[in-house]
């Protein structure tokens, strides 16, 4: 137990900043991913064939291949092309942090778009017809009726996606980022006490998972308030 406290004292700051970076990766990728997922979900339901094919291929590729390969493709792979190395974006694309955000965003967008599509499809038809019948344009109906309804329907499934995203951020350590996983790998090899170090990391990850779960429970209660009030 003393050794454990000693470890916490010595590597506490590393763990703290690693956790901060992990949370940062989750929040930024989740927001960017959600912004990408909505148009993707609409494209997946579109009758425009090219749009449908491109969005389906995107979604199948990112859901059917390991996240680790995606990290390596973007961090190590992009540099293979001369036109990328000479472009003005290269100073950014060389950064592990930027690559991690890009990879996690593209990945979570693919998964979330499926969840959002499911949510939109489960909005009762009558509500959409009612919205159109009151004279709303398709866009207004989406903005005011369909998407907010879909949002409250998908919250439980979406919370799982965010937990998967949290676990996915641990792979950012393989492209040199010192987030929680990277920081604990360093501490493990420095202290020769991998079990204690990884157990601590596991507890922190578990707490983050619990935090995400309770955040979504709170959101669910808030957005579905009208249901409990009606009773």
């Amino acid at each position, binding site marked *: 137990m003393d050794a454990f406290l000693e470890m916490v004292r010595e590597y506490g700051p590393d763990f703290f900043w690693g956790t901060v970076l992990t949370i940062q990766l989750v929040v930024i990728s989740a927001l960017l991913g959600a912004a990408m997922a909505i148009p993707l979900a609409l494209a997946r339901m579109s009758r425009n064939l090219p749009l449908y094919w491109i969005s389906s291929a995107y979604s199948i590729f990112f859901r059917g291949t390991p996240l680790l390969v995606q990290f390596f493709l973007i961090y190590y792979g992009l540099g293979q092309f001369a036109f990328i190395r000479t472009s003005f974006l290269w100073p950014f694309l060389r950064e592990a942090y930027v690559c991690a955000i890009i990879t996690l965003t593209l990945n979570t967008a693919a998964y979330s778009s499926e969840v959002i599509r499911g949510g939109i499809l489960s909005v009762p038809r009558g509500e959409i017809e009612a919205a159109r019948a009151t004279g709303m344009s398709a866009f207004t109906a989406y903005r005011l009726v369909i998407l907010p309804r879909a949002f409250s329907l998908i919250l439980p499934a979406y919370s799982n996606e965010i937990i998967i995203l949290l676990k996915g951020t641990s792979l950012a350590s393989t492209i040199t980022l010192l987030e929680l996983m990277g920081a604990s790998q360093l501490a493990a090899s420095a202290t020769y006490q991998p*079990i204690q170090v990884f157990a601590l990391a*596991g507890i922190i990850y578990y707490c983050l998972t619990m935090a995400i779960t309770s955040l979504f429970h709170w959101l669910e209660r808030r957005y579905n308030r009208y249901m409990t009030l009606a009773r």
Partner: protein
Amino acid sequence: MEDLVAYLPLLIQGLRLTLLLAVSTMLLGLVLGMLLALAKLSRHGWLARSAFVFTNFMRGIPEFLVLLMIYFGGTQVLDTALGPGVVNVSPWIAGLTALTLVFAAYASETIRGAYQSVPKGQIEAARAYGFSAWQAFRIVQLPQIWRLALPGIGNLWQGSLKDTALVSIVGLDDLMRKANQAAQTTRAPFTFYMAAALIFLVLTLLSMAIFTRLEKRASKSDRRT
């Protein structure tokens, strides 16, 4: 492109190990998952509680962390027990153990859910017809658990197939590590990571097709009525 042709045999070699690991993980994971599900349903509170704590924790932490904990932590335990460097945890054992534990944690929830959705009345009916408890389980319950759990197991299989890529980090010569080696020697990382990605994609599509067929077969009883 020439590089790709030259290194294809190497990738195929890695692919075999990847598939072997994924299949072993699923088989062991199903057995352990079944045991965990039984533990959760057991009448002994402490057994059920510890099974729940284990699966909740496993599902709340990254698979990568589980792998490193077993790989490096296992070595730490063996070193203190037997002296440094006597026995090491091989990447294969660490990978198989980690992936199996993760698979079992998720599978136990799928199996428990399936078990609980088989109506109790059917078991009573089977027992009333003179089936032994084991016969009732094997002939009445198990086929239905299988049918209900199959879609979930299909998803878990796809997940652990993709998770096998992680073992390349602890040095197991799977598809991913072979792609790494080829990428480094030829300096064409995009080509080889894309090749690995496409192989994984083909495997995913194949497994989806297989599981759809299995699901159709397992739910024959639904269509007849």
